[in-house]
């Protein structure tokens, strides 16, 4: 890093330098486009419906049947897709609501700040399993409202992780140097401009790795909705195959393996993002 002398840092850096707008920088534009494309595909394509079953019959005294294991990869994959899709949709709620909660928690009024802090702390420290069931029963008790299992999963998971994300956003906002705020005031920028053009663009990159970690964590919590709400996700698929065939070693081991196949690369990507953000900050 070549540190620019303070006198030139105020004026616009030359075109092609480090201060190009982010959408002109292919190193940033390409990942963003890829993420958006992946999101669009996930949001619009549902996993094919159908029962989770296999026609392969394994010997009774085999502890682990390879043939049987191979035959259940397809239905388990279908379940994994449903789980991943619900997680990603839930995470859009997390990203937006998390920021809102973070702003509420920083509000100047105690009447806003304290309830927000309590709600965040309460949702964060109670099990998501209980929240799933509570919300499901609540929805059932209210007349005229009917939500599918997947919708309940998306809502509860999204709100649960929004409370985590709000803490991350808060740390990110606090990490913006005070001088930036003071400069915005000195330049007579409106609060809206200060937030959208000064604070958030500086806060969000610092927060991205943490948010990525929470996305992976949310993916790991999503299968809980299978046995509880009946979302046809990966765990639901595994239990369905178990009920169908009375074999329980292969479905659960494969479910675990399938999970590692998704979450390990995801964690690796997050670590790369972390390294990159740390590099750009120096």
């Amino acid at each position: 890093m070549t540190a620019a002398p303070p006198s030139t840092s105020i004026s616009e850096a030359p075109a092609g330098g480090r201060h190009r707008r982010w959408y002109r920088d292919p190193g940033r534009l390409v990942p963003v486009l890829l993420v958006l494309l992946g999101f669009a595909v996930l949001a619009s394509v549902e996993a094919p419906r159908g029962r989770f079953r296999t026609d392969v019959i394994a010997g009774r005294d085999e502890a682990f049947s390879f043939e049987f294991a191979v035959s259940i990869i397809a239905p388990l994959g279908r379940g994994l897709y449903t789980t991943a899709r619900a997680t990603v949709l839930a995470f859009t709620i997390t990203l937006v609501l998390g920021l809102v909660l973070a702003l509420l928690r920083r509000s100047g009024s105690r009447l806003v700040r304290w309830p927000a802090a309590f709600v965040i702390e309460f949702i964060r420290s109670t099990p998501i399993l209980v929240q799933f069931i509570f919300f499901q029963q609540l929805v059932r008790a209210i007349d005229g409202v009917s939500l599918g299992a997947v919708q309940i999963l998306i809502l509860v998971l999204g709100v649960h992780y929004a409370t985590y994300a709000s803490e991350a956003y808060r740390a990110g906002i606090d990490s913006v140097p005070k001088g930036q705020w003071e400069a915005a005031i000195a330049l007579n920028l409106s609060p809206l401009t200060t937030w959208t053009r000064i604070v958030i663009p500086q806060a969000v990159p610092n927060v991205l790795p943490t948010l990525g970690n929470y996305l992976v964590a949310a993916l790991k919590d999503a299968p809980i909705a299978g046995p509880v709400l009946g979302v046809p996700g990966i765990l639901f698929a595994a239990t369905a195959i178990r009920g169908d065939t009375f074999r329980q070693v292969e479905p659960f081991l494969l479910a675990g393996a399938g999970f590692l196949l998704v979450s390990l690369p995801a964690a690796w990507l997050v670590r790369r993002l972390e390294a990159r953000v740390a590099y750009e900050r120096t």
Partner: protein
Amino acid sequence: MEDLILSEGQYRQLLVGLRVTLSVLGWSFLLGVVLSLSVGVMRLSSNRVVRGVALVYVEFARGISSIILLFIMAYAIPILFGFQQGSRLLLASLALGLNMGGYGAEIVRGSILAVPKGQTEASIALNLTPFQRLRFVVLPQALRIILPPFGNLTIEILKGTALVSLIALTDLMQVVSIIRQQQLANQVSDVTGLFVNVLMIYFVIAQVINGVFRLAERALDRRFSSRPGDLPTLGGPATAAAGAGG
């Protein structure tokens, strides 16, 4: 408001479930701490094999979902290893503890790395054995950094204990389902009271865990009031505070 208070019998039922929840929490915490410390130290070993084993374990424990690990423990492991009547409670604690160990090991590793290198060098110069170095010099200083994230991790494990109801253990959450069934049989349609109660129980336990870790931090601060780099304090709390502020 009176909907929020359950009957005495129901509270007694919840208490039974609470005991199971707490014992799962206790066992998995114990296992988690042991695993965190040992694997965290193994991650920094100079031996490549030891380091590799620790890394594989950490990646596995952090990559897999705790609910799926729980199901593997409860359903696949007993058949694979040929024991039929394993204690579900211990198997569940094993799953949650393994899970916690993966996260905890990374915390321990990071904290040990954060202890200034001069401390290790000084203890080598003083001819301490590697174990003494760890036990008397590095770990006590790392503990200050370890404690706050460990509190959060313990709360995550507390939240994870609710999952054991899905493998047919009668924990707090399972009792709630039973009470709910009874309510439905008695045509009680209100669900808020029951769930507010149980959420409050979890919330209170989480706050207690939080408090215990805060107390531990304070106790530690009092015991090792000088930070790395500070001179030993002679003048009591005032100078200690001044040193800590810098």
